[in-house]
């Protein structure tokens, strides 16, 4: 955004061309009998060509109507697709919790717990199995630990051919 290049503009033009063909598209808010929340989360692993950060996103439905969505680059670099998906899942859960608060404020009560759909088995297991929590935590902390040491020149990393 701060230094747009020609390829950025080409991407914008692609979006505009898509919009040209879909100007009448919109958001259809339909009647729904159920007031339950459910959401979908997704992430592309290492999608950014500049810094290899992943882009995560979520889409939350209220009944049959999509009401909240977001797509954004993750703040940290995921070392596996499971990690990226897991972060997107965490963002989606934060949003769903916020919407639950909002529904409580609006005095709309939903009996069932919200369901989040995630296409990564590993992330699903991680969320279900507390054992793996330690593993991911270790990976993330370890990663930052190594970088910190390299930056302070307390350790050197060298290449060795196999």
């Amino acid at each position, binding site marked *: 955004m701060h230094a*747009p290049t020609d390829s950025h503009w080409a991407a914008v033009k692609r979006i*505009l*061309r*898509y919009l040209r063909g*879909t*100007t009448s598209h919109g958001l259809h*808010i339909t009647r729904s009998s159920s007031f339950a929340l459910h959401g979908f989360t997704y992430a592309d692993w290492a999608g950014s060509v500049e810094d290899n950060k992943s882009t995560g996103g979520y889409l939350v439905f209220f009944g049959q109507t999509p009401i909240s969505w977001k797509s954004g680059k993750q703040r940290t670099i995921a070392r596996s697709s499971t990690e990226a998906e897991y972060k997107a899942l965490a963002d989606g859960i934060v949003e769903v919790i916020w919407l639950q608060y*909002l529904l409580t404020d609006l*005095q709309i009560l939903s009996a069932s717990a919200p369901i989040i759909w995630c296409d990564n088995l590993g992330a699903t297991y991680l969320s279900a199995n507390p054992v793996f929590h330690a593993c991911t935590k270790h990976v993330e902390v370890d990663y930052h630990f190594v970088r910190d040491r390299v930056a302070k020149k307390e350790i050197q990393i060298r290449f060795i051919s196999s």
Partner: protein
Amino acid sequence: MPTLVLQNTSPFECLFRRTPDYNFLHTFGCLCFLFLRPYHAYKLDFRSSPCVFLGYSSSHLGYRCLDLKSDRIYVSRHVRFHENIFPFMKSEQVTSSPVPPTPPTYLPSLNPPPSFQPTTYQTGPNHNPILPSAAPYQPTLLPIDSTTPSSPSHIAILSPYACLSNDHYAGTGSPSPDAHVLRSAATEQPGSAADHPSSAAASPVSTVQTSPSTASAGLQLCVDLSSYPLQHLPGTGHTSPCPAARQHPMVLRPRQPKTALSTATAATSAVSFSRVVSPPSREPLVFNDANKYEEWHSAMREEIQALRANITWTLVSFHPSMNVVGSRWVYKIKRRSDGSIERYKACMVAKGFTQQEGIDYSETFSPVIKQATIRLVFSIAVSCGWKIHQLDIHNAFLNGVLDEEVYMKQSPGFVDSALPSHVCRWHKSLYGLKQAPRAWYTRLNDFLLSIGFRASKVDTSLFIFSVGVDICYLLVYVDDFLLTGSNSFLLQRLIQLMSSEFKLRDLGSVHYFLGIEVQSTSMGLMLRQHKYILDILTRAGMLSCKPVDTPISTSKATIMPDPLFSDATLFRQIMGALQYLTFTRPDICFAVNRVC
């Protein structure tokens, strides 16, 4: 020109104590011989040839003469005049026998000319371009010449109304050879521009302009010229040999017979007065531009009256310790959906960028409704079959009460004449002040809580009103409200309560909110940003582009040294607009985020 006021002497004579020299002036259209030696390549050429006197050069001290043989125009100081011989009179006598003579009163036709040829001197040898332009003002010259032969009557041609003002002279003079010149013009150019007052009006242009002009430009110019003082005219400023001549249009102008103008002439005069008469079609940027129009002026008066009615300020004397904020006017034409003008709106805003934090303002944050909340409430309302009201607060910010002391200059154009050096101390918030949205929100929040609303904890712009089983939701986006609820009587009651406190309009069912078109369908509601998309495409110049099926390329981009895009501002504008477009378009969310 001699006037009665000065005992039949000319102002020039009064001023310089001598009579002006009229010897430079000669009869228009007469035969003349000018010294052509400077124009010839060989000294054995004829020293002169018969010419017709056309007028006075705008850039030389000399006469403009048309060579009858070569159709070329020469300018020379050394001319011999034969003021009793008119070469074009002969041609009229030869050709005009079957043609009825043009009435000398020269009534203007009501029809505009079918085609108006620009009068140029560089035309072919067979076409005499001078006559149509020369003819129309001739009647004016004719009586003047006959009654006051020594007056500098050639200046009369500079008024576009000269052809009409011949009413003043008609009958005072006897027919003279000049009238035949007029007739010959009408004869040689039947149905041409010579018949029409607009061309008559344009004819001065052809005499003062040396370069050919287009018809419209000529028409415009001649009207403009007529409203200028004569010394601005190129044809008179330098070469007029007689300063007294300058007074002539000043005499003529008050006589402009406006009521007697034909439609064609009226149209041309409307061009020059369009700044004043016609309604403004664009929004001015500065006060001085807007003040010329009555519409904007009345809009500003309305705004000032609204401000005064709200007691938004008091005048206090200026003290150097005050940080005085400037103010300006913002003008907006409110249009209906079909593009016609609904009203002119003038809005006074403060130049808040000169405010200093800690002195003029402290907190500025003001919440607005979150997008997800809007969609969630829409969804609930549709599912429950509730009606969604849209409310609009008039002059919302003026309801906000300022905690801080804010001083402002008196608004341009509405300075108190008794106390011009005083400054306004503002009590109410005003557009442009940093704390204005916050002051308005605080005021609204206090009021809504006082009538029984409850602010949501997770979205502070959402207010909830619940009585028993009935519930109402109020969404606040600065001065745009959405109100929905289970009980329509309760909704009406709440609208009444709010309108008792604020100037409020109930726009009925929501159909256009924050640039989003809301359309009810059999299944529920359709939220679209169709107009917004078209605006973006127009701004990017891609309205006629070829559509594609996907918003982003599937091939992965490679890192390459890429030249910077030339128009970064346009890029950012489009990106900002696209980000707002994701309000109703989750499908482009990823693509937009990827580009950012």
